[in-house]
């Protein structure tokens, strides 16, 4: 144990420092109220919490977003204060940040034996303000970038040593990268290509190449396999994650796409986004370093591992350029058309892993080539470059985080929707006296967190049949109904159409007979059940009111199929009896007329 500690003291130091650094930043972000700022952050928290706290808890609640973040968040979101504060994200992701800095360090060490560039890579990683921000709030970005770094590390290891263990870890991290963000699926063919290339270079027989490809592929495709099977089990098919109702392409269908069909424009947007995310000097430094490395390493045995890492780390950039060109993704930057604030600017961050490695690999290479008299100044030179680069990043961090308080992130959340949802949540929290709350959760993520009511009390779209039945006759199921105000303005058509409760009931007389409006603002409405009306309806249908979920707040879970049958029986009997009565009256009338 002592030996391990001594041998790995720098690695342990990096991990511990990063954890402390991450905790401090988590505290700063929380104290400035930025932890749970965006819709996505709230949504991730909700999904993770729903895994354990839902009318239908379990894997069905994962939905069609990449699930890895939700799975690692789940143990923390199950603790209510961490869920409501958003700090569950910090608890789950600060260790991931530490893993990322360790990977950056170890990757450089795989190429050069010097500590300065290796520590420099780790330092560059943890001093980027956005890496830090996305590592202390519940978002997928840092998780994805760290999984890319891990893939790169094990790919380099595999190419260098060819050990089976590295191949298995490589497969595992490729699978995890795909589950962290769907861009990660692109790694399967990329990494497989490098695995095969290495084997061909080593003049392995076809049968061995085939065997290793199968052994790698089986693990690497687990994430993709899970996503397909999940889509079949809980959606409309294996590609539900790409084309379903809540997929990014559906959400962005009605948006203006400035990059559509223009790869040059897509590149411009991505580079501009990267400049925003990396800071003003890191993009040119990264590109220059990359070119230098390609030139200087091309005839060395370090070239293939370098090329592998480069391809893996830059793959999301390429993926996003293609997605922007093809129209399946959208990226808005304030200074480019449509000049309407920021949207998805974080796409520019995804290749930051390469940005921390490239300059430090150049530094390592330069230090290695300093011979003769220059050898004396090797460490001085290294330290100077370290101080300059990390210093520049620290200045960028200071301006972005501590001076501007993440202006871009705050600017992205200027819509009135979150504020209105928060206001409604406060009213709901004050007035709530039990019973189910009917809501389209994916569109009102702030409500479920801010109201402080256990999520098992909500009927929402991922409760499937419960939601479908409540949509047909909400008064039998929900004591409370939350919907968009039909007069809501400034939202996309997709959003309006997906809010099915408002679409179905906002203008219904029956609904307004059964519910009273409790609260309303520009975006939202909150209704409460009129118990007496439903009791009347129940007696009309001959159903015991105690069995009706909306009237009996003690009913937390119920068999939806059984209750639906009871309801149908009651309704049928009522209508049969009524028809019989009407027939009786009609017959009596005829008889009377005859008489």
């Amino acid at each position, binding site marked *: 144990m002592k030996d391990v500690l001594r041998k790995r003291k720098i690695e342990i130091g990096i991990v511990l420092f990063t954890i402390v650094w991450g905790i401090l930043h988590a505290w700063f972000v929380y104290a400035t109220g930025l932890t749970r700022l965006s819709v996505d952050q709230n949504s991730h928290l909700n999904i993770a919490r729903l895994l354990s706290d839902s009318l239908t808890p379990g894997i069905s609640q994962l939905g069609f977003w990449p699930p890895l973040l939700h799975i690692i968040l789940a143990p923390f979101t199950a603790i209510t204060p961490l869920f409501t504060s958003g700090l569950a994200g910090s608890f789950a992701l600060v260790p991931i940040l530490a893993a990322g800095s360790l990977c950056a360090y170890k990757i450089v060490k795989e190429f050069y034996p010097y500590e300065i560039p290796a520590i420099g890579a780790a330092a560059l990683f943890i001093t980027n303000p956005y890496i830090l921000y996305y590592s202390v709030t519940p978002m997928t970005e840092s998780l994805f970038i760290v999984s890319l770094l891990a893939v790169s590390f094990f790919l380099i290891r595999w190419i260098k040593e060819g050990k*089976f263990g590295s191949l298995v870890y490589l497969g595992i991290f490729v699978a995890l990268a795909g589950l962290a963000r769907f861009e990660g699926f692109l790694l399967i063919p990329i990494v497989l290509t490098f695995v095969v290339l290495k084997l061909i270079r080593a003049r392995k027989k076809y*049968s061995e190449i085939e*065997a290793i490809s*199968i052994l790698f592929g*089986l693990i690497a495709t687990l994430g993709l396999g899970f996503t397909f099977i999940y889509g079949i089990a809980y959606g409309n098919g294996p590609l539900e994650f790409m084309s379903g109702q809540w997929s990014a392409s559906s959400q962005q269908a009605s948006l203006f796409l400035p990059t559509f069909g223009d790869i040059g424009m897509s590149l411009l947007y991505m580079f501009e986004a990267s400049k925003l995310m990396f800071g003003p000097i890191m993009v040119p430094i990264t590109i220059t370093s990359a070119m230098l490395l390609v030139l200087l390493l091309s005839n060395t045995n370090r070239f293939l591992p370098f090329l592998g890492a480069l391809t893996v780390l830059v793959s999301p950039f390429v993926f996003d350029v293609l997605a922007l060109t093809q129209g399946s993704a959208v990226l808005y930057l304030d200074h480019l058309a449509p000049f309407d604030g920021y949207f998805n600017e974080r796409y520019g961050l995804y290749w930051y892993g390469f940005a921390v490695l490239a300059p430090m690999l150049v530094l390592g290479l330069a230090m290695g080539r300093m011979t003769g008299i220059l050898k004396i100044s090797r460490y001085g030179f290294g330290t100077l470059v370290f101080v300059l680069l990390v210093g520049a990043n620290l200045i960028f961090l200071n301006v972005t985080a501590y001076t501007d308080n993440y202006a871009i992130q705050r600017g992205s959340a200027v819509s009135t929707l979150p504020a209105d949802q928060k206001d409604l949540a406060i009213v709901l929290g004050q007035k709530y006296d039990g019973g189910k709350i009917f809501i389209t959760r994916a569109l009102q993520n702030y409500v479920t967190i801010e109201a402080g009511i256990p999520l098992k009390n909500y009927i929402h779209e991922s409760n499937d049949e419960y939601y479908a039945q409540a949509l047909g006759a909400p008064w039998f199921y929900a004591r409370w109904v939350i919907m968009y105000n039909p007069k809501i303005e400034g939202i996309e058509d997709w959003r309006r159409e997906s809010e099915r409760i408002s679409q179905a009931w906002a203008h219904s007389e029956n609904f307004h007979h059964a519910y009273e409006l409790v609260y309303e603002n520009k975006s939202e409405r909150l209704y409460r059940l009129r118990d007496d009306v439903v009791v009347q309806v129940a007696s009309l249908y001959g159903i015991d009111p105690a069995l009706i979920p909306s009237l009996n707040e003690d009913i937390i879970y119920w068999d939806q199929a059984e209750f639906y049958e009871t309801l149908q029986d009651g309704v049928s009997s009522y209508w049969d009896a009524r028809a019989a009565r009407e027939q009786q009256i009609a017959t009596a009338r005829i008889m009377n007329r005859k008489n």
Partner: protein
Amino acid sequence: MERPGERQFNWSNTTDYLFLSDVLSIKNYWHKETLVVAFGITIASAIFAILLAISLSTNIFVILTTIIAFIYFALVIFKVWVVKRGYDYALVDFSQDQLDAITDEELPVYSVLVPLRDEADVIPQIIEAMTSLDYPSDKIDMIIPLETYDTDTIQAIEDARPPEYMRTRIIPYITPQTKPKTLNIIFPEVRGEFLVIYDAEIIPDRDQMKKAYLGFKHNPGIACFQTRLEHYNADQNILTKLFNMEFSFHYDFFLPGLQKLGFPIPLSGHSTHFRTEVVREIGAWDSYNVAEDCDLGMRLYRYGHKTAILNSLSQEEAASSIKSWIQQRTRWMKGFIQTSIVHLRHPLHFKNQIGGWKNFIAFLVTVPGTVLINFLNLASWIILAAWLLSGSNFIQDLYTTPILYLSVTAFVIGIFLFTYLNLIGSFNRNKHHLVKYGLLTPLYWMLLAYATTRAVYQTFTNPYVWEKTEHGTHLENK
């Protein structure tokens, strides 16, 4: 109840060459103790399940699926744990220098038993394999027992003119017609300090006996060495390929894991090396058990002895037709059931003898557990298929949410992991071309489940029948 060391075996007094007492043999299946244990467990389980169902206000079948899910999950976890420990465990091995340093003088007499029955086709191969062994012939005490009625094999061996040190011994027709009975007949004649059994189709590594000798010399606490098995006809067809992958996993990961953890090791029927005195001490083989190897492995532990895995290969022939494979596997599974019955007659006493709860649980998992998991696999596939085809609410209701997760996790992870381990097994043995066939492993398990079902049926209908594996089919293709 007989206890180790309490009885001296009489090696000549029986008509069926069974030297063990009744309680340690499967000769009489339904001992009073067996019935008491079986009924006791069944009734206690039933009462427990009914009480649980009543107290939880649920269906008895839900309780049953819950219990099954936990057992399945536990079996998967245990096996994964064992494999993890065994994956990189260094087996007992010796360098060429160490082997070269052995002088002929120091080597003890080594008995080699080669029981043959209906093996005329492979006689030249076995004689070549045995004469190739790197061990001085004057120190080899080789006995080849032949059945009196098996004239073809007797003739074939006469025609082959084996060297003098290979003694043939014609044994009388005595039931049960099993290999352990044959071994028991000739065992009193064994002269060697050590003893190994080779089947008709085996080609052991040339230096295996010397390695085993060094193994015994350097490990006085080890009573038995199990070697690693390999198939020389692995490429014959898809079945032999899958069989070979299973063996790679079993002998390279699973058995070393059992050894590392100090658990009892179920032996294989050949290429197992013993200290002769130990075999004598424990009463030799159970003539009636059709997996006498597994039984002997357990009995060794009951008597306080240990088994280790020797890093030496024995090449054997994989059953190459589905019929032959099913017959062989039925016999093995039937033998596992017989071994379970014998050793669980006095469960607590057995637990104390075998080395406490840890080893007792390991026995439960590796012997009856192997039979059970094959059954549970079959049941899981049938239930899954039935649910997929019918969408039955009844089936759905059997699996409450946590149990559904537990079952699905164990089932999916189990299938993936053990399929993958089979692939790694072949990969590690440099059989790269087999790896792709490993993807068919789940189909192979279906055959296994069928053979297990057949074994259970035979346990009641034909308990002692020895469905002999056909050897030499690979020679027909040459």
